[in-house]
């Protein structure tokens, strides 16, 4: 993957398939320490211990069409090649939590890329689910929560063009503020 935000999109798709009604994506960057935490947490159907243990094996997949599943192994590799870490915790009936750390100073650190596009694609393609995106850089925070947006919008769907445009602009402005 050319961008970590593509890995995030890919992992979040697993949460969608697991029937999650709420998917939380968390980015926490400590620029002084050169550490980036990426967390993807869902309340989907979860996995058994056995499944969780084999999830990082590319030749393990629950899919029946093919015998390989590359999403999790690729994400794990992206973290570990920077000297970072990858952890997955899952419980049947409760959900799954994926937590990764990246050393941003590593030459093998994949750039985060277009995270806005990832988050907005997820939101607009899955208006029946809720997403909470939190981005924290050196203590400053920006959060976008679809539950909050839905409360204001009532029955106007999140994939209405005007709403999508608003989300894009809002996201752009808020992340620029964080990066200042």
């Amino acid at each position, binding site marked *: 993957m*050319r961008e970590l935000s593509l890995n995030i*999109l890919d992992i979040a798709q697993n949460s969608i398939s697991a029937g999650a009604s709420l998917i939380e994506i968390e980015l926490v960057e400590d620029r002084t320490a050169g550490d980036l935490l990426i967390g993807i947490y869902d309340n989907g159907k979860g996995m058994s211990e056995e499944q969780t243990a084999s999830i990082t094996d590319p030749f393990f997949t629950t*899919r029946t069409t093919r015998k390989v*599943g590359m999403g999790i192994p690729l994400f794990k590799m992206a973290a570990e090649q920077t000297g970072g870490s990858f952890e997955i915790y899952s419980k049947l009936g409760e959900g799954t939590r994926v937590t990764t750390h990246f050393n941003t100073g590593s030459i093998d650190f994949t750039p985060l890329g*277009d995270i806005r*596009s990832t988050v907005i694609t997820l939101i607009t393609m899955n208006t029946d689910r809720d997403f909470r995106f939190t981005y924290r850089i050196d203590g400053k925070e920006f959060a976008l929560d679809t539950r909050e947006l839905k409360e204001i919008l009532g029955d106007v769907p999140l994939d209405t063009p*005007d709403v*999508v445009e608003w989300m894009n602009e809002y996201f752009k402005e808020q992340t620029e503020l964080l990066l200042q």
Partner: protein
Amino acid sequence: MKSLAELNAIREKAKSTMTVRDDNTELKRIVVGMATCGIAAGARPVLNEFVNEVARRKLDGVSVSQTGCIGMCQYEPIVEVFIPGEEKVTYVKMTADKVAKVVNDHIVNGNVVEEYTIGAIAK
């Protein structure tokens, strides 16, 4: 600066222009493969461009959605177009640049863009 308060105005505006779609009208469907293979090959910008192009042209009765692995990973990003009463068309190795032509020629005017289809590209 954008604020959450602006969503109220969007809501009011949307309410006044919202049209009730007849559930019996069959949608033209654009489906983008978004499994690991598709995403790695560049499906995200393709999907976004379809959404934007459909919104820009204010096309009614067209849906853009995503699906899992279509099964031909080497040809990703793959886009399938379903038009009621017609055979499915599979576009392969799509890019955001090719989207406008597919929407204009195929979705709006009904002419399949042969050069982007799997028949033209897969040898």
